[in-house]
């Protein structure tokens, strides 16, 4: 009895299997390639951090079919993405476009790298021109202790 229940339960539950299903694939390999490319950049809205290309959710499948439909109708990649963003908002984009406040995100890394380069360069220059300070910063006992520890 329990086993029968469990088996029927197993049949009802969604399968955690393939993302892109065989029946979705377009006949034209070039279009299909473009569809896959677009899909990896679109977020599955009901999943946690998965693209629609990877997701098994029903909604992701609908979106994949939608992307393919638009491509077959002759849309460019940009038009397809715009179409999806118009309906679902920019949340759907896994690659946030560098526009408006998102510019900060894209420029933060290079900016910090430049600042860091400047700081590092000035530090290295200072070390280059510095003279070694007196070694008597350590007391004799400390120096002996240090020598003992550092002795290989």
């Amino acid at each position, binding site marked *: 009895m329990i086993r029968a229940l*469990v*088996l029927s*339960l*197993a049949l009802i*539950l*969604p*399968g*955690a*299997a*393939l*993302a*892109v*299903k*065989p*029946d979705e*694939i377009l006949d034209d390999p070039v279009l299909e390639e473009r569809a896959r490319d677009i899909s*990896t*950049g679109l*977020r599955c809205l009901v999943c*946690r*951090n*998965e*693209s629609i290309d*990877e997701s098994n959710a029903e909604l992701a499948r609908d979106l994949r079919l939608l992307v393919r439909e638009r491509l077959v109708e002759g849309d460019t990649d940009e038009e397809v993405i715009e179409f999806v963003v118009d309906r679902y*908002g*920019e*949340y*759907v*984009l*896994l*690659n*946030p476009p560098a526009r*408006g*406040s*998102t510019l900060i*995100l*894209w420029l*933060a*890394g290079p900016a*910090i*790298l430049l600042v*860091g*380069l400047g700081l*590092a360069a000035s530090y*290295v220059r200072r*070390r*280059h021109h*510095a*003279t*070694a*300070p007196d070694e008597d910063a*350590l007391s004799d*006992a400390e120096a002996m*202790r*240090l020598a*003992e*520890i*550092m*002795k*290989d």
Partner: protein
Amino acid sequence: MIVELGHFALILAFMVAIFQMIVPMIGAARGQAGWMAVASPAATAQFALTAVSFGALTYAFVTSDFSLSLVVNNSHTLKPMIYKITGVWGNHEGSLLLWVLILTLFGAMAAWFGGNLPPTLRARVLAVQSSVAVAFFAFILFTSNPFLRMEIPPFNGQDLNPLLQDPGLAFHPPFLYLGYVGLSMAFSFAVAALIEGRVDAAWGRWVRPWTLAAWVFLTIGIGLGSWWAYYELGWGGFWFWDPVENASFMPWLISAALLHSAIVVEKREALKSWTILLAILAFGFSLIGTFIVRSGVLTSVHAFANDPERGVYILAILTIFMGGALLLFAFRAGIMEAKGVFSTVSRESALVVNNLLLAVSCFVVFIGTIWPLIADMFFGRTLSVGPPFFNAAFTPFVIGLAVALPIGAMLPWKRGRIGRAMKPLVGAAVLAIAATLLSYAMFTGSSAIGPLAIGLSVWLVAGAAVDLWSRTGRGEIGNRLGRLTRLPRADWGKAVAHAGFGITLFGIAALTTYQIEDIRVAQEGQPYQVGAYEVELVEVRRVEGPNYFSTMATISVTDHGRLLDLLYPERRIYPVAGMPTTEAGINNGFTRDVYVVIGDPQDNGGWAVRTYIKPFANWIWGGAIIMALGGFLSLSDRRYRVAAGAAKARVPSGGVPAE
């Protein structure tokens, strides 16, 4: 009864931790040897009590004590024994208990092996370490008590999340925690040194092994997680830039920077305040990682138990420890003057470049991870930051590091010349360019980054070999080979770890560039061609496991008429947890994996089947293992053992012996 003992031991450990946080610190400030000396036995007691507590919880899981609500929610009598044990940390409360167990273990190890530390430094390190423990004991006892009983115990449990019932993931958290918490030692040493007001070469030598060990454990932990994702999630991805993955990757990057800058402190007494800052930040990122995972503030595949209230508590811990340490740093960093003088072209400068690239790349990962939060809070935009951003923003740093590494490794300390360092590397450079061209010729895709990365990986591995060889000096090959075996283990560790980085890079580049994918409806008994292999769906059966039901396919892979392997991909249903999982069928090979996944039955017969040929997939994790091995080699270097030995030979001069 045993459960209550565990709870009681945990409370006692909390008390001991409070004592150990305060008394040695006052003792060190007043120079009272007795007050300082209590730190060591207290650290041992704290560890022993936490171990008893952890043991009690494990006992409850092993015996399926369903009067405990944690066991009910995460276990089941039918679950295999190994997963009953790993289930202890497969949940929020238990994983935090593991966290403090490791934290107190490191504290106790600092007490046991810290005999050569100056007494005041040792007392302060143990007190700071204990203050971290106090925060986490309080967190567990007041918000996440694992020892809560049920009023009416049920007959059976609700089972562990089936994704966690897997060897790769079962041992992924302990290693990650060893890494996260290992960085608490670097933090404690940094804060103690700031209070003490001095950082010298000896300090660098004490801090480095802890950091190195933490980094090795992080490497293994991240590798295990990535390997698990590869075979378990069903499409063979190995890294997703998921917030939780980033949470473990950021401390890894910072600790990699820290263990390099600690070398400069140790050998050259420069970069002191920077190293202290890194030590503070490394643990800060560990806490941020814990916060991200535990709070669920950034939703992710991994967040198996999250709760905003607990998140706020961890955020408070983070703020207090980071705020306090950074404030202390701001006041005291000025007194740490650098001693070593070095030229613009030198090993020191190369390590500055290494630190710059690692630290900024960590920052890039950090800002990408929290950007959705910032955009929502400050700009009112709901957006996602996914793999395309991270790939674009992070890859340049990897390229920069890979280009610079072999040259920097060859530069001498103090003063060097690029030309002279490059001379022995000419062969490696030629080899690398040849590899780039060769892979470019075989390449049909749209991006040239793959062949470039392959060339760089050859450059790294060959560069590591040249580095090692150049250490043997001049003379006949026989003599040099002899000297090769007598090189310090630190030299071997360095070369091995750098080569491991190259091998991981190679695996990633080859896999992402040359993967073959095939998705189709396969009919039983009708073979088809994928790449160089002939694949055939032989049969599909229903199979019953100990706590799951499975749809298991038999798929044969034939290579030019010779049967290569029979693969058994599965789709499992765990009825108690109500969750399906995918088990891929993988034929592992040195140069490629054949990876098959079984999907849904189709309406008009046949099954959906996905087949991948994944070139050099295993090299990704092989490289991680080699990196970890390099870390262990370096950790076993003579100078650490000698330093430990020197302590025993020493007659205590200043303070009173601790034990």
